[in-house]
């Protein structure tokens, strides 16, 4: 992975930078010893590592502003960091950058049930947002798999999704407002507890901009009342084509499940070996979950089970208790861990039009043979967001490169059939060099023009999202 050459001038000025940061932050909030900065050398895309110049852990919007003002003045690149769970290298430092971590900013600032929002500092973890309102039977809907650890800051940066977004949408659909610090230290308020923008929808623009337009320190999030109940049903089929038809038929029947998860045979087998959830050994497995009161669930499942039966399932398992529900979900929820036990793996995140599913799975199977690497597929079938997991051996020379090439081919395939490179993980550095496969030069130019507006010196989260060659002229300007 190409990264810009660190600026020797900046490296040389590290003492001055650290001294300036220490003037505006408490001593323990500035980390600069090499042995300590190494803890921040990567995020969850661990194959790429680079320790930053320094790490700051501010506690307030004012402190974030003070830090950014200094870095802006000294022209030091800044890498914002939530919890460091990005699978795309979204928080990978450069050697001449300052990591700005919001991990200490975890306060709940306001909870308002009547207006159905919560305002939090963005270092708070996704799950603990729900934690702050669940006693009152509310929840925050976006639920990325990393929700126990990941921070709202990162969720906003990547516009994170989750298993339940078919019904509830992704982060951008549940974000009402932000307090954001611009690279020059200016604090701006965008949105609030009301709906929609009075002018341009800058909130929508910021969400998913991968920390390149500003540092979001506080967020107003929509909270929802918990449904009375939820129940999954598990179905197994002998072919992915048939499973795909079942998904399509369920949607066309007017049922809107909260989740439709799909696993293919390699993934089912891995999960079975790992978690022993009692999954059938078949080509394709679906978990469909619906919500409501018991009677409402029965009504929806009635429609879904009719459809499922029409397609001749090898297994159809309806949950009759919370324990059975947990068992149905057990394998799916341990899918990544299961694959990880077999080998190192790389998790992809392309989205495809749902109708292209059988074609894409077949092509992935063929490529798997060509590359000699195993791949398991688990994904959110309702919205076409795939998560192929490619297995490789990190200790075997050349295997990582082979795996990356295979991954790139899968993502190109996603684009080719009308989909995109990333559905919920973000571009980061991982997909950066594939952007021209999805976008024409002008399409990227207008996105980079937005970056010019918010961060004219291109200091925020350097070397992410845009191919380095495409951004070179702007970064130098």
């Amino acid at each position: 992975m190409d990264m810009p050459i660190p600026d020797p001038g900046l490296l040389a000025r590290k003492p001055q930078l650290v001294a300036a940061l220490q003037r505006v932050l408490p001593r323990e909030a500035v980390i600069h010893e090499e042995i300590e900065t190494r803890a921040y050398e990567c995020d969850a895309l661990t194959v790429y590592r680079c320790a930053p110049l320094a790490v700051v852990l501010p506690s307030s919007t004012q402190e974030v502003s003070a830090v950014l003002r200094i870095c802006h003045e000294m022209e030091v690149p800044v890498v914002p960091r939530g919890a460091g769970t990005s699978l795309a290298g979204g928080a990978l430092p450069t050697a001449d950058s300052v990591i700005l971590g919001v991990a200490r900013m975890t306060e709940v600032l306001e909870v308002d049930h009547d207006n159905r929002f919560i305002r939090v500092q963005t270092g708070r973890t996704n799950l603990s947002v729900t934690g702050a309102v669940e006693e009152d039977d509310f929840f925050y809907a976006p639920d990325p798999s990393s929700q126990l650890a990941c921070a709202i800051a990162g969720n906003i940066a990547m516009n994170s999704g989750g298993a339940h977004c078919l019904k509830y949408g992704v982060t951008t659909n549940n974000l009402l407002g932000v307090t954001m610090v611009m690279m020059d230290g200016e604090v701006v308020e965008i949105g609030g507890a009301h709906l929609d923008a009075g002018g341009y929808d800058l909130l929508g623009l910021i969400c998913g901009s991968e920390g390149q337009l500003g540092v979001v320190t506080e967020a107003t999030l929509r909270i929802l009342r918990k449904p009375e109940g939820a129940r999954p049903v598990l179905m197994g089929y002998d072919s992915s084509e048939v499973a795909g038809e079942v998904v399509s038929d369920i949607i066309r029947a007017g049922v809107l499940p909260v989740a439709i998860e799909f696993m293919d045979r390699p993934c089912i087998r891995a999960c079975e070996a790992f978690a022993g959830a009692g999954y059938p050994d078949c080509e394709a497995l679906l978990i469909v979950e619906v919500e409501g009161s018991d009677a409402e669930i029965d009504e929806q499942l009635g429609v879904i089970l009719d459809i499922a039966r029409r397609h001749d399932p090898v297994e159809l398992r309806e949950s009759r208790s919370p324990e059975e529900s947990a068992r149905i979900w057990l394998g799916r929820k341990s899918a990544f861990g299961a694959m990880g036990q077999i080998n190192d793996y790389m998790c992809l995140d392309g989205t495809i039009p749902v109708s292209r599913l059988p074609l894409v799975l077949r092509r992935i199977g063929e490529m798997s043979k060509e590359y000699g690497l195993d791949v398991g597929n688990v994904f959110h079938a309702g919205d076409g967001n795939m998560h192929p997991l490619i297995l490789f051996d990190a200790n075997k020379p050349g295997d990582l490169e082979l795996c990356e090439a295979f991954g790139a081919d899968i993502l190109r395939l996603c684009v080719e059939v009308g989909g995109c490179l990333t559905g919920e993980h973000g571009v980061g550095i991982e997909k950066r060099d594939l952007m021209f496969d999805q976008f024409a030069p002008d399409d990227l130019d207008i996105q980079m023009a937005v970056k010019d507006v918010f961060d004219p010196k291109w200091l925020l989260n350097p070397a992410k999202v845009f191919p380095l060659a495409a951004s070179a002229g702007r970064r130098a300007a």
Partner: protein
Amino acid sequence: MEPVSESELSEMIAGADGPLRIIGGGTRPVGRPVDGATLALARLSRVVDYEPGALTLVVKAGTPVAEVERVLAAEGQRLPFEPMDHRGLLGTQGTPTIGGLVAANVSGPRRVQAGACRDYLLGVRFVDGRGRVLKNGGRVMKNVTGYDLVKLMAGSRGTLGVLGEVSFKVLPEPPAAAVLRLDGLDEARAGEAMCAALRSPFEVTGAAHLPEGTAGETLRTLIRIEGFDASVTYRAGRLVQLLAGFGEVAVERDKAEIARVWRAVRDVEAFHGRAGDVWRYSVRPTQGPALGAALRGMGAQALQYDWGGGLLWALAPEGTDMRPEGLDGHATLIRAGEETRARLPVFQPEAAPIQKLSQALRDRFDPRGILNPGLMG
């Protein structure tokens, strides 16, 4: 100018030697008046791709909204955000287009639960002020590849680019609905009732408080739920219990009548044909009643509450600045004479740094300043 293709649209913009007034069907003339050659998108009209099983729809920007709704209805689906038809309120003629709807980010009563137009917009193709054909987003439901210009384009009213094609996530039209009605509540009590309903787990898809005279009736508060039949029956029953403390609750189950009433709410029929300016406010729902009282104090003649109190419509004396000081939210002057719209800010004035960002974006997307110049600020 009426382009029939994206390339023609691109040539017309690249070749323009002065300001352009961009319209879809011209039924929503909101914003400062624009002086320029008219560029109408109505002939760029076609359903490009519709996959009911994937809930995705791709259409050319000039396609009539009615055509889109017809195509969806044939498959039992709909645009979930319930877009308003502005013709009755604004007294305009013509055919609303899907591109105009996106350009103004038009939603309706269901927005409170389902989300806005921008939440269902998956992708755009547009032409910027230099005549470049650009795309962002796509036709799949989950996409975080690059910056989200889709949201930025929604509601930018043709000032950042001219939409050529838009794609949506659509949803099934539920087979059943019910509306609960409470009569005679004052605004504060109505606000409380709507909040109680919206914070319940019963998935309320509309909560409005209407002035007397809407659809020929009296002052009333309406709560809507939609879904499968047994589910609607169940939730209606639970909501009747929940709202019992607010007075007698009547339940309407007739689909045609429910559609008629919510069309009246959506299109603010209460103000149709009545003289005066029309203002629209978005605030946090519990602030609605207090804002309403303030607006009455400033001379508002009639009010309609939607989104559980979060959306207010006010009928006001012509030419009056109806923005209360310290408004926590935003106000838009939706209907007024050209003189008023040229004199008063139509859109909520922005804080200086936001204004600067907005202007800088305009300068980048439209360096010659020819796309609906001045319309938004």
